């Protein structure tokens, strides 16, 4: 599989139609980061008023929803910036361990919004907040406690990150993509390279959904792994998979300036498959019937990827570049 997924495949001939880098930025990427920054602003404000878990959950869910359209980009400012907003998967439990230590030691950094950017990414961003707001080990914390203060600090730090990321995309990196092929552009030497970079993000996201968001909890037939479901504590595992698939389709539609009927049909099949899944956090994956329904969703996500490859990749004669998830 690695050989296939990693194969850097490529721009052969000159692109027949210049695909929509501007549209991808203006219709999907930039509005996505702006909306995420607005949602984290609301979350941080809510946390300033009341940092207890129950009070914060609605704004947390809204912020996570806003993140998903841009969550899987690993390009420009998001190459590194996405990791401290959403550190997952976490097979060795860094988030739980790091948060436990910060709370137990009453580390002064827990109330230092400025300094918090130096903290391990395991204790920053959406998944750290999820642990505090939903995990029984933490979620019962009272107002005025270290954990409560920490939740507010993480929310404020997340808001700062969201602002910085939106700004970096808007003021800096969008132009790098738009000016691909111009003499002054050292990142993308041809227009094709910018198209390929965005196209790679779409396919990488779908592969991540199939292999990690769905394949993680599926484990093997004999040994399903419900604890590996993404954002299971907040009941978002299924929702994230669907939102990621929708984001892939939207970005593909922006990149193409033609209709994508097979892609649209494939997305409908993803939604149909998702609608048949009963447990939104995949905790029923240990039941063979339930596992099968997740597997059907996984296949639908893979078909969506195949449709995008056929309707965009083949038409532009491009293939994906190296994927940040390659490796082990």
């Amino acid at each position, binding site marked *: 599989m690695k050989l296939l997924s*990693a194969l850097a495949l490529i721009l052969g001939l000159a692109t027949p139609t210049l695909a929509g880098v501007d549209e991808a930025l203006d219709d999907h990427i930039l509005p996505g980061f702006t909306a995420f920054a607005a949602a984290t602003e609301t979350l941080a404000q809510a946390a300033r008023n009341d940092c207890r878990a129950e009070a914060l959950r609605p704004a947390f869910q809204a912020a996570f929803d806003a993140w998903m359209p841009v969550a899987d980009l690993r390009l420009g400012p998001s190459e590194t910036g996405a990791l401290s907003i959403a550190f997952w998967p976490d097979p060795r439990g860094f988030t739980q361990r790091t948060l436990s230590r910060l709370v137990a030691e009453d580390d002064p950094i827990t109330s230092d919004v400025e300094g918090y950017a130096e903290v391990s990414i395991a204790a920053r961003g959406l998944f750290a907040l999820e642990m505090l707001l939903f995990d029984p080990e933490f979620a019962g914390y009272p107002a005025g406690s270290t954990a409560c203060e920490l939740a507010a600090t993480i929310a404020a730090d997340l808001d700062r990150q969201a602002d910085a990321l939106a700004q970096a995309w808007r003021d800096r990196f969008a132009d790098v993509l738009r000016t691909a092929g111009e003499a002054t552009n050292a990142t993308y030497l041809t227009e094709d390279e910018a198209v390929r970079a965005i196209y790679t993000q779409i396919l990488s996201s779908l592969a991540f959904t199939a292999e990690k968001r769905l394949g993680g909890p599926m484990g093997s037939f004999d040994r399903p792994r419900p604890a590996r479901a993404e954002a299971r504590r907040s009941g978002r595992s299924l929702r994230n998979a669907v939102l990621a698939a929708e984001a892939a389709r939207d970005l593909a539609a922006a990149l193409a300036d033609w209709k994508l009927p097979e892609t649209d049909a494939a997305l409908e099949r993803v939604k149909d498959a998702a609608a048949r899944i009963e447990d939104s956090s995949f905790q029923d994956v240990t039941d063979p019937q339930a596992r099968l329904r997740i597997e059907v969703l996984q296949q639908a996500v893979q078909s969506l990827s195949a449709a995008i490859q056929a309707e965009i990749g083949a038409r532009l004669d491009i293939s994906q570049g190296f994927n940040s998830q390659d*490796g082990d």
Partner: protein
Amino acid sequence: MRLTLPAALATTALTALPAFAVETSEVLGTYADIAEAKYEDSLIAARTLGDAVAALIEAPSAENLQAARTAWLAARVPYQQTEVYRFGNPIVDDWEGRVNAWPLDEGLIDYVDGAYGGPTDENELAALNVIANPTFTLSGIEIDASDITPALLQDTLHEVDGIEANVATGYHAIEFLLWGQDLNGHGDGAGDRPWTDYAEGDACTGGNCDRRADYLAAATQLLVSDLEWMAAQWAEGGAARAEVLADEGRGLSAILTGMGSLSYGEQAGERMRLGLMLNDPEEEHDCFSDNTHNSHYYDGLGIRNVYLGEYTRIDGSLVSGPSLADLVAEGNPALDSEMRQRLMETMMALGRIKTAAEAGFAYDEMLARGNEAGERLIMGGVDALIAQTRSIERIVAALDLGGIDFEGSDSLDDPSAVFQ
């Protein structure tokens, strides 16, 4: 000559070339020759390590433990240079978890410090300590570990319960048995296992010294036999060599896939940037021995010597031949210059990390929260590796390898076929 066929002629990069002076088959031959030499060197060095381990077990002493550590460090030099063969060659990729799996929950193997914690959500065997426990229970079944043998490690213990962090074999298991946990956090110093962990009778520390010695001997034997197997795959008539030489396009794709995947997702991403962003002193590749700077450096060197078609063996001799660099330069000299430049910049950046570490600023110290100098050093390596990945992608494009061995390549050639 496959690349002179019409598809390649249509690319601007290659239009001026009626024929190549550099034969792709020769380039692939050099690639296989270098693989053979690297795995042979790894095997030679692992045998030396095996001798040192046998001496330690025979006559435990501080000197013999130190000699074994020195042999382990030397063994890493050729092995890390082989990692560029991983992602592009399924034979290597399917095998490498036996010899270089990382990260590991070392509590599976031996005693650990209290701060390590017990079983985790993900891994109920994270603190098993098989050296201290001749039997243990897994999913309700009792496992007999009374004899510590290569078979026990390989067939029962390695990745037991389907958990990748249950690393029972390979360099890092041996590293843990030679150095022990590094309990210095972000401070100076590596693991400091006392030699008396292998002492006999009352002098034994850490308990079960005989079982620990059995474990170390078994793990070292396995490393040697695994490397023997892989060296044979690349020798004349070996399966890995045959696969690379079977198809020129696939062979070139294997070279470039290995270079790009190791540069980007694996080394820049998983091993360097992630550890830095986690600020965890043990989130480094060679965490027990504090040898991570060398692991990264020799990984980078391996990528470079595959491109240039030149490898200096551990006896100082040179293996070289027609290279991917020659092939690229023939069609696109500017791209070849760019690639060489990027590879050199990576080696400079990784060299800065190595130099600083050897001068006393250890890699785990660079990872500390708020350590700006360390962050700059590590991100310098990350950025250089990402930049060289972009050049590797350009080479794949210039050689027009798109579609070869690509999942769904039929669909790329004939999109409508997908939906029939």
